[in-house]
């Protein structure tokens, strides 16, 4: 009986499905799928091998907004900025060959910073694969090491299922970039497609485990006995949307917490337990006290070498608890005494339940002592300089005062990035967008464009150096055409500052090819019909920043800062975190 019923039900379902069959091209079914996945914005650039998809897109203008970037690298960084600001999956279109290879930097960046992306690349006709056809490149093999998953579609019938898998893989577990390469014949192929079904299970893929109580109990026991516990948190909190759970955990236990640059805005800068930044240019206390704490609780971070410094002198005295969703991260760089494998959205509340309420006043006071030293020796001179030359820090201080910590700050890579991360104030999560793992110069401008689409109600400020800006300035064209109201702040020290700093400190001031000249940035912006201004003395700084921020629409402000300023504190490469230098 039951079997008969089952069969009947199955037949009914089939009949229903056939009613909703969609007849159309692979391109159309792809775009339908994107809409089903909730996509509204696509960053892309057309070309020969992706023309059928663009042809179909012509009829979807009311549902899918396509932002025509000026270079595919700009497109993928924009999608990254979008994903980081919004928490949604970023979508990119590019053609075969050079279009696809231009995505590689962005893929590598998204892979190392766990950013969910779905990239669609066109490919030559299936019958031409392997013939070195025009604009053919082996995209799947080129992108394998820099994607969480990739797949080549040669038959349109595969498109709905592959797209559903792509979205599921990109955003679940530890997120990451996914690439689908679709041959031109599959884009053109006309088929009858069943209703789009979202993917929520792949048998060979376990995005997160069922949390085991043993882990939690062992971790709680260590935390409850700890006299000097210390929390290090990373982007895992943000990716797991566990900001509230994290706050509850540190507030109950009273444990001081320091962040990696990708974790930065997970809790407000002003939170009393937020003790600052970890790593090479992080704060004094968090670095020194890493080697004095008795229990180190790492949450959603991966012990990058820029965070740990010399590993054999890293927190050797401490018991290590490591909470991560990716089991490959546990024990990878720092051996954990207790590895808590799981989604911190689930593990943190369980842990919070088992830990005792506590206040670590004396221990927190130690952080404050070190902080005072840093304020006196580093922070005050940087934020309130007495020199004639402007510092990057005072620019950031003014931004904090004007925006009050509510702006989304997107940075490029280098000295300005470290200064921005050190001094910017944040009230809200997903406000600090930067290329952390890969350190991609040229990331800032396009990522800020994407971030504006991802967080349209926020003020988005792109802070970029004179070097990094010159890597992707073409995206001013995207702003010009589509009007993303991005505030571009160029901190110009007429050097490739971070490399120059290293050459000064470690290469006897042999300034080898770090002296970089710039075009007239104001004139450049104006040639793209973007309002712009330049400031080279302190008296005009505040006013110029206020004008930029209150300006409707996009704006570029160039600020001339001291040529040979350095970012301190600094943990020199190969040294221990406790050997951090204040000058």
């Amino acid at each position, binding site marked *: 009986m039951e079997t008969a019923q089952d069969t009947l039900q199955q037949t009914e379902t089939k009949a229903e499905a056939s009613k909703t069959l969609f007849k159309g091209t692979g391109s159309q079914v792809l775009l339908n799928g994107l809409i089903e996945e909730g996509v509204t914005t696509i960053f892309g650039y057309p070309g020969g091998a992706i023309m059928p998809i663009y042809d179909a897109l012509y009829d979807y203008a009311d549902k899918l907004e396509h932002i025509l970037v000026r270079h595919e690298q700009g497109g993928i960084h924009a999608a990254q900025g979008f994903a980081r600001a919004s928490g949604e999956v970023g979508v990119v279109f590019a053609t075969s060959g050079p279009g696809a290879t231009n995505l590689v930097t962005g893929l590598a960046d998204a892979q190392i910073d766990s950013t969910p992306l779905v990239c669609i690349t066109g490919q030559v006709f299936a019958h031409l694969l392997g013939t070195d056809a025009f604009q053919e490149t082996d995209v*799947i*093999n080129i992108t*394998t*090491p820099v994607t*969480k*998953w*990739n*797949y*080549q579609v040669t038959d349109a019938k595969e498109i709905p299922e592959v797209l559903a898998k792509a979205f599921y*893989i990109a955003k679940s577990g530890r997120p990451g970039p996914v690439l689908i390469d679709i041959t031109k014949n599959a884009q053109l192929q006309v088929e009858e497609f069943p209703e789009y079904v979202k993917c*929520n*299970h*792949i*048998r*060979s*893929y*376990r995005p997160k*485990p*069922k949390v*085991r109580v*043993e*882990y939690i109990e*062992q971790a709680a026991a260590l935390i409850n006995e700890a006299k000097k516990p210390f929390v290090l948190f990373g982007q895992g909190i943000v990716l797991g949307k566990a900001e509230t759970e994290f706050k509850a955990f540190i507030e109950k236990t009273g444990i001081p917490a320091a962040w990696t640059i990708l974790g930065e805005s997970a809790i407000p800068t002003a939170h009393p337990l937020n003790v600052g930044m970890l790593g090479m240019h992080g704060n004094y206390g968090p670095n020194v006290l890493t080697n004095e704490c008795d229990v180190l609780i790492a949450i959603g971070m991966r012990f990058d070498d820029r965070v740990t410094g010399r590993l054999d002198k890293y927190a050797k005295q401490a018991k290590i608890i490591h909470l991560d969703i*990716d*089991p*490959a991260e546990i*024990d*990878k760089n720092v051996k954990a*005494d*207790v*590895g808590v*494998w799981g989604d911190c959205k689930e593990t943190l509340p369980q842990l919070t339940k088992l830990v005792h309420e506590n206040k670590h006043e004396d221990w927190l006071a130690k952080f404050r002592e070190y902080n005072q030293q840093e304020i006196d020796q580093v922070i005050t001179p940087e934020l309130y300089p007495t020199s004639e030359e402007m510092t990057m820090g005072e620019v950031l201080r003014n931004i904090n005062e004007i925006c009050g910590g509510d702006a989304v700050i997107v940075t490029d890579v280098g000295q300005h990035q470290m200064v921005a991360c050190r001094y910017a104030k944040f009230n809200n999560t997903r406000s600090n967008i930067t290329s952390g793992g890969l350190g991609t110069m040229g990331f800032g401008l396009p990522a800020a464009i994407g971030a504006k689409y991802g967080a349209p109600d926020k003020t988005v400020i792109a802070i970029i150096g004179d070097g990094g800006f010159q890597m992707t300035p073409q995206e001013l064209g995207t702003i010009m055409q589509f009007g993303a109201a991005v505030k571009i702040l160029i901190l110009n020290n007429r050097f490739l500052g971070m490399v120059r700093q290293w050459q000064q400190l470690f290469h006897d001031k042999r300034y080898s090819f770090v002296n970089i000249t710039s075009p007239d940035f104001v004139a450049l912006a104006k040639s793209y019909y973007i309002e712009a201004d330049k400031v080279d003395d302190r008296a005009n700084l505040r006013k110029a920043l206020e004008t930029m921020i209150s300006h409707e629409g996009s704006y570029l402000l160039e600020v001339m800062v001291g040529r040979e300023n350095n970012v301190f504190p600094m943990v020199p490469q190969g040294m221990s975190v406790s050997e951090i230098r204040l000058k």
Partner: protein
Amino acid sequence: MSTENTIQHKIDKADLDGKQEYTITVYAENRIGLLNRIAIIFSKRKINIESLNTSPSEIDGIHRFNIVITESYEVVRKLARQIEKQIEVLKVYFNTNEEIIWQELALYKVSTDEIAEKVTVERLLRQYGASAVVIRKDYTVFAVTGHREETDALVKALEPYELIEFVRSARVAIIKDSAGFHEKLKEFEAFEPGEELVENEFLDKGEKIFTM
């Protein structure tokens, strides 16, 4: 704490920093490109794959890779986790030689005249458990199945007698302690996997095979 136990158990078996041969067994979907995805996990770290075999497994549609490398326990463990992280990989095991039964197949082509003339060759072949696969007027092909040392030893022995061609297959290995993959697969296919699946070395595996 079980963590300590399991790790201690491994340390006892092999010096933690000392390199030794490990056989990595990967259960995976049969998908184009996956071999490359797995291979680059090794090449990214400049680790040489000594032997690599792909074959069907006990389950229809699921592929089994056997990869042999000489590395320390720590390195192999990290590699295994990176491999298991790949979307189409179901499960990764790694084992020392004591924990597996393994074989390699070697083929030897020798001149038929040589072996017909020289009795010692025949004796050699018997001694090494070789079987004749093909006997032609001009040459004979022998096959030997066994461990590396055994197949290597016969190469040495045949060298004086005009060994025309020699080839050896990759290692195939069965894990002594494994109960196969049928039960695990059911877990993988279930939407809510049971605890069996989330086992890893932080927990209670004790003397059992390593699994993540």
